[in-house]
């Protein structure tokens, strides 16, 4: 029996494992399905990682190495696929070297990350030619395998990976003709619009979508149309762009097959497990962190969240269980979800961190936290956007007798 088993060796899993060890867990095991740890950071060769945490602008692999180089006394199984996790904390896994294995743990941390939405998820009509990739798949081909995926590309969706790939493809000699976004605002960070699209004069079509992909064996072009407020294409606004490649950057889905299989409740708003303030799921002794809980913009926040999960898992493994009253956190007007969804004030160190996304682009608004009609905290924000995760800190002293706290976007006074 191990103290803590961490499932996934990406940024979340590594930070959780290190934190579990540093907080007293004696035996910590990380299980990773790839041949090396680091997860998606290995293919994110662009810079900007670690600004918050290390006050440096690192590339993805450099950021990963800061954690991968700090794994003393942590056991790592690579090339190993976890098949099942149970709520009595048994992990069933399989690898080429060791075959089938059944491992027991006092605490488990789920850190499986997320995967990309594909063409099937958004149902673009047209043929099924070669040349349609998710942006992350193209990123892997280009940055790790060394294959160029095309010469003339159109990118659907303005998520960060799509924007980063627009720049990457351009630098490698491809022509990126357009970035097409269904919503009236970008899904990525503003800095990426500037340095990945504007720098290379790549047009961004907001409130537009691809209505058809042309080509039989290889992509030959796309039809783009403007969409109305209902996000449906407007007839008569169509135009064609010739291209050989379509990259999709249309969102990420937390990879929760193991979580669901264990019967751990999943929040429909985040597509990740419901969690308490210490990242414990509703199944005692099983914790979750990183993109498997909710999709983050910045790895720095993933690391911080995962360290909390790892520390809590160690604490649980050492016999200290969280208890006390539970406050439900709800999303009110203008807020699409919150993480955590539950706070146990007795288990907080004077304050609780709250992460959430807003539903629309707002300027000069106030984020309020209410207990019924009473405002317990409010935070002014000059700018809010769905593509940028928000973070507030609520002192426990302000929670009082609340059973429910509601987070909303309101007019600033």
């Amino acid at each position: 029996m191990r103290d803590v088993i961490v499932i996934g060796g990406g940024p979340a899993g590594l930070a959780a494992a290190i934190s579990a060890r540093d907080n007293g867990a004696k035996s910590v095991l990380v299980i990773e399905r790839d041949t090396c740890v680091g997860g998606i950071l290995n293919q994110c060769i662009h810079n900007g990682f670690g600004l918050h945490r290390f006050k440096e602008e690192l590339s993805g692999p450099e950021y990963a190495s800061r954690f991968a180089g700090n794994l003393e006394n942590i056991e790592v199984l690579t090339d190993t696929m976890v098949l099942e996790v149970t709520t009595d904390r048994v992990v069933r896994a399989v690898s080429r070297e060791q075959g089938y294995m059944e491992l027991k743990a006092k605490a488990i941390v789920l850190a499986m990350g997320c995967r990309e939405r594909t063409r099937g998820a958004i149902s673009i009509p047209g043929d099924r030619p070669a040349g349609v990739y998710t942006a992350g798949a193209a990123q892997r081909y280009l940055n790790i395998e060394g294959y160029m995926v095309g010469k003339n590309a159109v990118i659907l969706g303005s998520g960060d990976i799509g924007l980063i790939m627009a720049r990457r493809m351009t630098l490698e000699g491809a022509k990126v003709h357009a970035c097409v976004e269904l919503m009236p605002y970008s899904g990525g960070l503003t800095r990426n619009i500037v340095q990945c699209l504007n720098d290379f004069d790549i047009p961004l079509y907001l409130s537009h979508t691809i209505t058809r992909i042309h080509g039989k064996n290889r992509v030959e072009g796309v039809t783009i149309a403007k969409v109305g407020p209902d996000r449906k294409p407007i007839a008569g606004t169509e135009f064609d762009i010739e291209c050989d490649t379509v990259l999709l950057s249309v969102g990420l889905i937390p990879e929760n097959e193991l979580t669901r299989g264990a019967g751990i409740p999943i929040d429909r708003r985040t597509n990740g497990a419901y969690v308490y303030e210490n990242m414990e799921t509703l199944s005692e002794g099983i914790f979750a962190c990183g993109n498997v809980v909710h999709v983050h913009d910045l790895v720095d926040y993933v690391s911080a969240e995962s360290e909390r999960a790892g520390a809590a898992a160690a604490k649980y493994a050492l016999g200290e269980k969280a208890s006390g009253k539970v406050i439900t956190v709800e999303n009110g007007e203008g807020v699409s979800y919150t993480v955590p969804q539950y706070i146990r004030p007795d288990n907080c160190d004077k304050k609780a961190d709250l992460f959430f996304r807003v539903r629309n682009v707002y300027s000069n608004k106030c984020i309020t936290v209410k207990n019924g009609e009473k405002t317990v905290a409010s935070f002014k924000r000059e700018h809010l956007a769905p593509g940028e995760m928000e973070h507030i800190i609520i002192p426990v002293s302000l929670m009082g007798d609340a059973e429910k706290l509601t987070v909303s976007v309101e007019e600033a006074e």
Partner: protein
Amino acid sequence: MANIVCIVCPKGCRLTVDEKTFEVTGNNCPRGAAYGKTELTFPTRVLTSTVKIENGEISRCPVRTNGAIPKGKMFEVMSALRKVTLVSPVKIGDVVIPNVCDTGIDVIATRNI
């Protein structure tokens, strides 16, 4: 007055820069003020890419400029990187091209391979 978005960090502050005095407003940190001025006078960027590597577990080694280079030189540096072939082992921070394209900036490896 020029309205630009700061790209120094993911916060993305909206800056207003006076085109004559280069006075910056809207920044939340001193780096933003410096960025606002540089962006209008002499824009620079950190460039990241990959180069060929032999005998490693993977065939591309990620690299970056160890500082900002003039924005206009990005494609020139990309051409220089195409001519490079590394041989494993390579460590993070190893210089791949010193003083690339006379920018005074080195290109360094960003993965141990």
